[in-house]
């Protein structure tokens, strides 16, 4: 099953080290392959290096694509994290 969702990054630091780390930690809980697309760039959503390369700042439009049995849940949790305004940065590295 393949699920995708377009979202606008709302965390005020964009997808920087800490939110990126959080994203990767969540992504790695799922079996599905997870990809993030921003403009013409496509990176592995389970790779911190990949996500940092995207340099998605607040307000960036990105697409999350998950492919696998738990795709739907994965996309739901990941987009919720990116849409939340106040991330509790103390919960991640």
């Amino acid at each position: 099953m393949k699920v995708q969702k377009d979202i606008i990054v709302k965390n005020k630091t964009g997808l920087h080290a800490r939110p990126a780390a959080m994203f990767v930690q969540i992504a790695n809980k799922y079996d599905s392959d997870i990809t993030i697309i921003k403009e013409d760039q496509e990176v592995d959503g389970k790779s911190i290096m990949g996500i940092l390369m995207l340099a998605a700042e607040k307000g960036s439009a990105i697409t999350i694509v998950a492919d696998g049995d738990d795709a739907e849940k994965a996309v739901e949790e990941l987009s919720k994290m990116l849409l939340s305004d106040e991330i509790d940065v103390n919960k991640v590295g």
Partner: protein
Amino acid sequence: MTDKKDPKRKKQIQLRGIPAAPGIAIGKAFVLGTEEIMPPKRSIPASEIPSEISRFETALEKTKREIIEIEDKISKEMGVEHGRIFSAHLLVLEDKVLVKEVIARLKKTKKNIEYVFAEVLDKYVGVLSEAKDEYLRDRITDITDVGKRILKNLSGVEDKTLAALSEKSIVVAYDLSPSETAMMHKGRVLGFVTDIGGRTSHTAIMAKSLEIPAVVGLESVTDLVKDGDHIIMDGIHGVVIINPTKRFLEKYQREKKKYESLEKELTELKSLPSETLDGKKVIIGGNIELPEDVASVLAYGAEGIGLYRTEYFYMNRIDLPNEEEQFNAYKSVATRIKPNPVTIRTLDLGGDKFLSQLDVPKEMNPFLGWRAIRFCLERTDIFKAQLRAILRASVYGNIKMMYPMISGVSEVRQANIILEEVKTELRKKKIPFNGDMPVGCMIEVPSAAVTSDILAKESAFFSIGTNDLIQYSLAVDRVNEKIAYLYEPAHPAVLTLIKKVIDSGHQANIPVALCGEMAGDITLTVILLGLGLDEFSTSPIAIPEIKKVIRSVKYSEAKKIAEKALQFSTGKEVEKYAKAKLKEIVPDIAEELTE
């Protein structure tokens, strides 16, 4: 400068960098090696590929164990939040994309694994160093930090580390990484001086938490300093002096003493009340923009937040913020600052504040145009969402609210009608809010100041916004350098307007605050106090000094000084008089001011 003719005497070098943590340190340099991470290149036969891969895997494992160990150490010594930096390091280590890329490249190029790994890492660092965002660029340190550790474990060679620090020294480095600072003997570090880095780099964060000075971004300081050289560093102004002459040394020894005694005194002030020698109590609040700023407001001993700017929600984004995210932010601020109050200023968009998501036409005179309350009264959809968020948050603490850029009482009435509509709506939905939430006006337009007696009847408090009030009453664009000399906070016209506002407020029995930059300028503190101001709200860092001035003067004396100040004909004269008086009241702070 001609120093004593000593042939062995090294030449004094003075450098300027970015001040990253305040304080002054004088001591010997301890220079950490530069950041050369490129290992030698060597070709390998295809038969060695599997053993290179296994060497790589072993190094990754070893690095992982080391990092977990450091994370534990730091969490125990400095608190969990510092230890967590390393979880990001672990993610880099476990990054399968990175590992895959290294192995693929190893197979393709048939070079030694150290070289291949360094090349891949270099590629990532290259991309990140072009990031527009300072925060993101500073994260390069995290990645090279892990990288260096892996390389060290691949080669088995130990670098010179901070663990070798044997006497009190100023640490000089290209950059400092968390795992480097983790192992250092904290009591022996007097300060940090680095080639690269910004205000949010690890070096800066670490220095602040250790309360030692740091100067970063000096570019080539590691080339200029040798181990054991004498250094002076000034983390307040971002100055580093290598091999200082006697004269400079003595000067900075004095500076250091002065800074330390002032610092000590200001820290002690934190818990003392802000009242004059004869017992008149005023409130000193802090100005904030983000919920995170509450921490520094509390750290500097503010008694509440006198100005919470809310434009931040609208900046750097393409959509409009919703009620929920505003509510969460207001609630979080109110909860953390209570029982002290927080005064939320409703949206002050327009003027110099850019709106990307709203299609606002360009104006000839944006500061006199469609902005702040004028904008909100027309875009009631945006205004109501904010009012709802503020009202809903009002049950979580002591929230007050004020309208910006009021030019006359009819605007207050219109805004209050909208506020009532929102309240009715909330009541209908049975959503709780504080029905008695005080609603006040910002006084920043001359017409509002002049008619403040009328406005006082329909406001719960006033807050004077001096940045705009000065600009409007003197007709001076504060960003135009050609006329900057006309921007005079102490201008008789400005003081007269402020007096009028305070008097009108007091006649109607409502408190008057001042939340512009003027509130944080110690030159004018005594005059404002003497005019009867009830509350100063300023950037948190200025709070201790303002408090010190207030605690050093009698209210009766301040009243006389204010009265006298109102009799001068020019702003220059007022300022000169104010500085002379300040020198009598608080000699040590005033001295710093004139330098």
